[in-house]
């Protein structure tokens, strides 16, 4: 089983010479220069980064507000966060598709970015972290005459770096691997993301395993890098939610 767990990583080998030591690097040259795989890769990257930036800003703002302010509707919004966590996202594919079409966003980057700019799990993560910080720094800044936005971005933001790192890794990975919504909300190759391209590649022609697996490796390599660099953040992001429950 452990051996198999390494398969996606070594999957750039074609099935027949899986055990042979010959590496066909020419396939990589091939997909990078001639195929569209590189374009899909870039699409995934652009969408992933846009969603990442949006989540960092908006989840941070909302998480802070829910943690610190006692404003009207605070409890209501907090419970909707929990509620949305429970709503199975896959059941709204039909109305989501219709909505995106009506908005004229179908088959654009907007369809892949706008609905995902802020997510409840991220808000929850930030809120929990800010709950654990003492408010004294913010109070001090306010006494010095700082406005709310200054407090938010100059005082609280630097303190939240660990939580935001966890959030960033989680959001990027989720988005990078996401398939269903990019699949139903786009159709043309110009905005197609890598997972969608891989799933459709198989459908179009007789299966060309070496190219498909080379493309798969393109999808896996960033995940592997992120995993090696940020393993600690991934693990703490996953376990933070569970222990609280």
């Amino acid at each position, binding site marked *: 089983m*452990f051996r*198999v*767990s390494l*398969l*996606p990583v070594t*999957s750039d080998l074609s*099935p027949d010479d*899986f055990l042979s030591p010959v590496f066909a690097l020419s396939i990589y040259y091939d997909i990078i220069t001639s195929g569209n795989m590189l374009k899909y890769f870039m699409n995934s990257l652009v969408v992933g980064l846009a969603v990442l930036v949006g989540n960092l800003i*908006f*989840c941070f*703002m*909302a998480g802070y*507000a829910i943690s610190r*302010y*006692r*404003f009207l509707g*605070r409890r209501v*919004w907090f419970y*909707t966060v929990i509620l949305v966590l*429970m*709503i*199975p*996202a*896959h*059941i*709204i*594919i*039909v*109305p989501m*598709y*219709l*909505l995106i079409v009506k908005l004229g966003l179908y088959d654009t980057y907007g369809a892949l970015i*706008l*609905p995902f700019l*802020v997510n*409840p799990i991220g*808000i929850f993560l930030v809120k929990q972290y800010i709950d654990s910080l003492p408010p004294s720094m913010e109070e001090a800044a306010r006494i010095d005459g700082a*406005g*709310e936005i200054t407090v*938010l971005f100059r005082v609280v933001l630097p303190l939240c770096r660990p939580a935001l790192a966890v959030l960033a890794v989680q959001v990027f990975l989720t988005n990078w*691997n996401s*398939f269903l919504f990019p699949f*139903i909300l786009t159709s043309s190759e110009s905005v197609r993301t*890598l*997972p969608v391209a*891989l*799933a459709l590649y*198989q459908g179009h022609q007789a299966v060309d395993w070496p190219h498909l697996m080379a493309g*798969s490796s393109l*999808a*896996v390599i960033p*995940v592997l890098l992120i*995993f090696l660099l940020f*393993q600690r953040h991934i*693990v703490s992001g*996953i*376990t933070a939610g*569970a*222990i609280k*429950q």
Partner: protein
Amino acid sequence: MKTRHLAGNLFTLPWILTLLFFWLFPLLYSLYLGFTDYRLLKPDWTWVGLANYAALVSDRDFLDSLLNTFIFVFGTIPVTTVVALILALLIERRFPGRTLFRSGFFMPSITSMVVIALVFTNLYSRGGYIYLLTRMIGLSPPENGFLLSDKTALLSVMAMDVWMSVGYYMLLFLAGLKAIPDELYESADVAGASPFRKFRSITLPLLKPVALFIIVINTIKSFQVFIEIFVMTKGRYDTSTAVYFIYETGLNQFRFGYASAAAYVLFLIIAAFSILQFSLLRQRRLY
């Protein structure tokens, strides 16, 4: 205080807008659509009441997809939970290469589902490694590979799913194990408790909240199984699941109303299970 009130609303505004616009509205819109006969080439759609739901009850494809979904959910979750627990208990012990094993098990759960499904499509196919391996140990796999047979296709997808997600739940169990205070084990040692007794009387009861949490999120996730099915079998060989049915009727045949009704049936099933499990979760936390 006034400014903070304003700031609070302002800071949550992006979330509120996204929530209302892209999540709550579709959810309600879907409920409405479920009572209409809206489809792509029929712009003058009308209210049909419960007709869609009545049709679903006798739609063989829908019932089969629901049955497959239930088989998937109740087939994978117990296995995933138990294997994840066993792995967590094994990996919690200190031994050389422990982090390597932990990473190895965990890695698949953050890898793209599409990629994993593609790799397994290869492994399961005639001439793939899993196919050859089962032949080597003397079994006779289906002639055209595991995914092209009514008997094994769904089971094969389920096995892959267990393999893929077990590392994630193992991590959650590990976190749960870490939260158990060492003193409990020490006093059990003093009392001369056997390892099995310690496991039964300390580890298991204290892991219950984590275990239930795992089962809840895994249930919600598993009821929505789709990507594996789409990539590996396209719903053929008796593997269509509820979300695959919704996709097929809604976005391939463009029967929006009918698909929305099916989506709501699934939604209610998931909601019922979530509520049931959450009330269980509540009860357990009392002691």
